[in-house]
């Protein structure tokens, strides 16, 4: 029982980071129908920014907001430089473009910074724990879960209550109909990329804190987690992205504990098999998006 509770908290902490990444993927997918395989590069780029800042003596309290800012700016630049040029092309073209950016960013850091893994100090409290009855809880998981909840509540408020949020949701439901209402397509797409970048930035803070390093290929794992979680939840559904993230985090942690000793290394493979099974039985993911009005 104690172990289960401990795993739940651990899984929710991990899942919260995935949820923020997946939500960023889902926001962009909703507006542009682009499955963004370059999403993880936001963490690569902000990871190097963090490394540079640490080299200049910055503390985590300054680096954390820097990561968010760099992530937002990077996403806006990627949209401006690459995606805006293939807007209106087939979804496949956009997908390939996102793959291209994914590899390009890695190649740029490889050529100009080097293949070496750049490490930086994790914050002192990262391994601290406290006890609640028999359960030992990591401070890190607690912080992640609280920040994720606050971020999700704020994001929901923006999407539900502001005209900006309304225009993003309208563009996601029916892009042309939204434009007929006067929703500016450039502005709504840039807004989606900024929001997506901010969410990736917040996830990136914790991802980088836990990793304690960055390298040219740092973007692969967060990209896989974010894209997979968005797919698990049901692409296009923001609620689904959050659920998918939490489900993925919980599945990873639970499997690692439950799989017999030698098989624990196969956690990733088992997770992928489970996802394949999910798609066989629910091809649309956990949350199905109805497109009744789409004609």
């Amino acid at each position, binding site marked *: 029982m104690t172990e289960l509770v401990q795993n739940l908290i651990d899984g929710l902490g991990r899942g919260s980071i995935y949820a923020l990444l997946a939500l960023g993927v889902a926001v962009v997918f909703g507006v542009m129908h682009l499955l963004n395989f370059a999403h993880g590069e936001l963490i690569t780029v902000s990871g190097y920014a963090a490394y540079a800042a640490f080299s200049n003596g910055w503390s985590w309290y300054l680096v954390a907001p820097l990561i968010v800012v760099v992530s937002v700016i990077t996403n806006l630049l990627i949209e401006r430089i690459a995606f805006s040029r293939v807007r209106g092309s087939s979804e496949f073209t956009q997908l390939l473009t996102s793959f291209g950016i994914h590899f390009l960013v890695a190649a740029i850091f490889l050529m100009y910074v080097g293949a070496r893994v750049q490490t930086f100090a994790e914050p002192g409290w990262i391994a601290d724990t406290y006890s609640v009855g028999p359960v030992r809880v990591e401070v890190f998981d607690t912080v992640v879960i609280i920040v994720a909840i606050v971020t999700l509540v704020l994001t929901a408020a923006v999407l539900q209550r502001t*005209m900006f949020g309304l225009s993003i949701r*309208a563009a996601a*439901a029916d892009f*042309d*109909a939204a434009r007929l209402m006067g*929703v500016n397509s450039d502005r709504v797409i840039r807004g989606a990329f900024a929001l997506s970048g901010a969410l990736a930035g917040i996830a990136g803070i914790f991802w980088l804190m836990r990793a304690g390093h960055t390298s040219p290929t740092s973007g692969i794992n967060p990209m896989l987690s974010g894209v997979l979680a968005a797919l698990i939840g049901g692409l296009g559904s923001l609620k689904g992205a959050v659920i998918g993230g939490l489900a993925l985090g919980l599945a990873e942690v639970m499997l690692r504990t439950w799989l017999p000793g030698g098989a624990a290394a196969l956690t990733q493979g088992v997770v992928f098999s489970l996802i394949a099974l999910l798609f066989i039985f629910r091809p649309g993911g956990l949350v199905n998006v*109805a497109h009744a009005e789409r004609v």
Partner: protein
Amino acid sequence: MLLEVSGLTTRYGSISALRDVSLSVGDGEVVGLIGPNGAGKTTLLNTVAGLLPPAAGTVVFDGTDVTGAAPEQMLKSGLALVPEHRRIFADFTVAENLRIGGITLAATERAEMLEEVVEVFPFLRSRWDAMAGYLSGGEAQQLAIARALMCRPRLLLMDEPSLGLAPVLVDAVFELIAELRDRGRTLLVVEQNAARMLDVADRAYVLRSGAVVGQGAGSGLLAETDLFDTFVRGSAA
């Protein structure tokens, strides 16, 4: 003239859906656009509204050349389209649908317009927080029109507002068009229901195979063109 379309050609690939179409709508006029299925009526509205790029020709709105402008720019200059199939946001509440219709307005103006459209469509108030996807076909059509009116358009384009509605609701739609006309609204309305449209319109254009084949006023227009059979007998069959 508020809207002047001249020599407009629109292509889907190598197929011309519109060929050299010219028409105009004056301030305060209600103009019908009638013609059989596949005549290019929707293509014409979508091209004027900026959803489709014209291959040739010009669109002049209120003296300004707006050929090829994006839909959001057309809306800003005062032209709104109630699209085919309405395309209301099903997952939005009625209130949210109306608010997004007024996205280009300042907040105070938007609040004023909400009051104004509710006056024209009183049922909206009782369904304010209902999901738009749960509205009946007639209610959804009224919401689509109300939503388009939110941005204070100077010209309202309507694409088949009576399509798919029960006969009693079709009556309501034409009553609404008459009411908007009496309020001094400028409308360009695509309708399959030619006879009904000619009753409420100041004049109409007849479109067939992508070209204007007739124009005029009243039921005489149907007799003048050879389309009487296509419309009246064809649609009754």
